[in-house]
C-alpha cells in the first residue's frame, strides 16, 4: 500500500496543493517555515481525527480558524489522499476525501468519501459516502462481479457529526478500503527522536516491538531484536562498528535493580560505556538502525531532518537504509536540510517547497527538465540543490 497523491485545500499554509506521483521513499526540502512539518502533520491530523474526533484534532492545532488557511475563499478544509491498495487481487487506486467546515461555530464533517473504480472503465464508485453524520457504506465491496445496482448499501447514522465514518466502519474488515486506510493512518509514525529521553536505564519489565516516537524505549526494542532476531541485531552491530570509530560491540544489559541499559564497547578499553556516557551521535545512529531494521516496518513513517548530529559521510548510506525500509513494505517521508543526504537521492524521490504570496507550493524534481537533464548526465541531487537548481527553494 502506497500513498500516491495528497491534495490539500485551506490546510494551514497549503491553500491549494496537489502532490502527485509520490514514491515510496520521498524527501522534501524547503527553507525554514515553508511547511515541511505541516505536510507531515496532515497524517497526524488525520490520526487525531480518527483516534478522537475532528473537534479535538482541530483544537490541538489552535482551532478551526488557525488550521484554515488565512484569507481562504471558502471556509472549508479539504484533505484528499489517494493510495494504491490490493483489493480482490487487483490493485486499485483508492481516494479518501475529507471536507471539514463549521456549522453553528462547531466543526463538522461536511463530506467524507471513499471511492475507487470497480473496473477499467467507468467513473469511481463511492463505497463510503457521509455528510454531517449521515451516509452509507457498501457492505459487499469485494464482490466485483456483481453489477452496481446489486451492491448492498448500509445506511448509517454516526453518533455525532464531528466523527469520521472510517473510525467506526474501519474496524470491520469487510469494509476493505476503509479498514486499510484506517490502519495506515493509525500506524503512521513520526520519528521525533529525543536523545535525552532515549538515554539511561529503563524499566526492564516490558516488551516493545517498535521504537516509540521519542525513542524512549530504545533499550527495550534493542533487546527484543537481540533476543528474537539475532541475525538483524548482528547487522546493526556491524553497521555501528563500521560507522562509529572505536565501537566494537553493542549490547543490552540488565542491571541488578531490574532495569535495562545499553552498553557500548570501545575496543581500546576493557569495560564498556553505558548509554548515558556515549555521544549524542552514537545514540542517534543506533536509534536509526533500530528503527530502520525493524522486522515489521510501519506502513507510513515520517522523519524530520535525520541528518542532525550525524557525520555527513554517513548520510548516503543512511538514505539507502531508508530506501531498504521501503522495499520491505513501508512508505517513508523525510524532510532534510542536508545536501549530503540529498546526494543519495534519485530524481523521482525529491520534492521541494516554496512560499508564493504567503502560501506553500510544492515542486517535483522530476518535473524540472533541467534537473532531469543533469541527473541523466550523472549529477547528484544535493549538489544541484547547492548550485541553486531547485528554483525558488532558497530564502529570498
Amino acid at each position, binding site marked *: 500500500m502506497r500513498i500516491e497523491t495528497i491534495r490539500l485545500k485551506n490546510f494551514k499554509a497549503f491553500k491549494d496543493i496537489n502532490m502527485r506521483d509520490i514514491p515510496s521513499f520521498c524527501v522534501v526540502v524547503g527553507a525554514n517555515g515553508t511547511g515541511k512539518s505541516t505536510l507531515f502533520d496532515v497524517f497526524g491530523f488525520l490520526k487525531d481525527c480518527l483516534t478522537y474526533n475532528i473537534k479535538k484534532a482541530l483544537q490541538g492545532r489552535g482551532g478551526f480558524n488557525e488550521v484554515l488557511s488565512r484569507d481562504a475563499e471558502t471556509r472549508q478544509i479539504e484533505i484528499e489522499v489517494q493510495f494504491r491498495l490490493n483489493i480482490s487481487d487487483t490493485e486499485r487506486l483508492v481516494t479518501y476525501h475529507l471536507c471539514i467546515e463549521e456549522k453553528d461555530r462547531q466543526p463538522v464533517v461536511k463530506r467524507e468519501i471513499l471511492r475507487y473504480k470497480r473496473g477499467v472503465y467507468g467513473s469511481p464508485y463511492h463505497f463510503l459516502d457521509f455528510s454531517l453524520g449521515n451516509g452509507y457504506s457498501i457492505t459487499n465491496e469485494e464482490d466485483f462481479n456483481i453489477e452496481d445496482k446489486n451492491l448492498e448499501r448500509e445506511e448509517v447514522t454516526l453518533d455525532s457529526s464531528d466523527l469520521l465514518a472510517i473510525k467506526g466502519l474501519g474496524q470491520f474488515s469487510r469494509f476493505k478500503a476503509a479498514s486499510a486506510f484506517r490502519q495506515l493512518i493509525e500506524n503512521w509514525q513520526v520519528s521525533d527522536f529525543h536523545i535525552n529521553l532515549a538515554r539511561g536505564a529503563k524499566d526492564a519489565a516490558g516488551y516493545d516491538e517498535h521504537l516509540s516516537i521519542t525513542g524512549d524505549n530504545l533499550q527495550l526494542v534493542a533487546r527484543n531484536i537481540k533476543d528474537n532476531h539475532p541475525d538483524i541485531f548482528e547487522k546493526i552491530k556491524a553497521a555501528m562498528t563500521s560507522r562509529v570509530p572505536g565501537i566494537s560491540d553493542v549490547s543490552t544489559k540488565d542491571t541488578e535493580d531490574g532495569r535495562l541499559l545499553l552498553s557500548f564497547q570501545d575496543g581500546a578499553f576493557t569495560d564498556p560505556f553505558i548509554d548515558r556516557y556515549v555521544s549524542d551521535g552514537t545514540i542517534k545512529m543506533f536509534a536509526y538502525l533500530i528503527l530502520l531494521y525493524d522486522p515489521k516496518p510501519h506502513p507510513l513513517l515520517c522523519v524530520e531532518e535525520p541528518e542532525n548530529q550525524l557525520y555527513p559521510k554517513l548520510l548516503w548510506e543512511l538514505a539507502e537504509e531508508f530506501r531498504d525500509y521501503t522495499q520491505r513494505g513501508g512508505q517513508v517521508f523525510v524532510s532534510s536540510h542536508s*545536501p549530503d543526504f540529498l546526494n543519495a537521492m534519485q530524481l523521482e524521490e525529491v520534492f521541494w517547497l516554496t512560499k508564493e504570496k504567503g502560501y506553500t507550493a510544492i515542486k517535483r524534481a522530476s518535473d524540472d527538465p533541467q534537473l532531469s537533464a543533469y541527473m541523466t548526465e550523472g549529477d547528484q541531487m544535493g*549538489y544541484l540543490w547547492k548550485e541553486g537548481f531547485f528554483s525558488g527553494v532558497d530564502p529570498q
Partner: protein
Amino acid sequence: MMQLVFFLEGPSEEALLKGLLPKFIPDHVNLRYVVFEGKQDLEKRLVKRMRGWCLPDTRFVVLRDKDAGDCVVIKNRLQGLCREAGYEDALVRIACHEIESWYLGDLSAVEQGLHISGIAKHQNKAKFRDPDRLANAAKELATITKRCYQKVSGSRKIGPCLALEGNTSGSFNVFISGIQRITSEAEHA
C-alpha cells in the same frame, strides 16, 4: 612511496575500489580517494585539485561513468583537463555505461556479495555477455537482485568479490589492466 590517487564522481565508486584494489595493488602503493559530488563537480574542480596536489610520486586515475555521454568525447575532455593541470600521465577510465555494468559482468560476485542466489546462471544471456552495451545497468542490477542492491552499500559488498579475470565487461577489464600497467611502470621506474 607511490601514491595512487583516484578522482571519483561519487561514494559508490570509492566503496567499490576500497574492496577491489587491495586484491592486486602491492602494499607499497598508497591508495587515496578524492570523492566529488557527481560529474559536473568532478570536471569543475579536477584541475584545481590536481594542480594543488602536494605529494610527490603521485599517479592519478580519473574514473567516471559514461552514462548518456559519448565515451571518446568524455575521455578526451578529461585527458585535456589532466594535461592542463600538468599531469599528462593521468589515467582516465570510463565505466560503460555505469559501474553497475562491471557487476553485471561478474554475476557470481553479485551473488556472493549480496548473499543472494540464482542469478549467476544468467551470465550467459546475451545482455550479460556484453553488459557494457546496456544503457541502464543500475536499473538492470536492481531488477535482477530484486532491489537489494543499493549504490554504496551494494558496491561495498560486491567490490571484494569481483574477480580480476573473466569479467564480461570490457570497460572493467580495461580499467584493471590500466591500473596494473601504471603500478608496474612505477615499480620498474
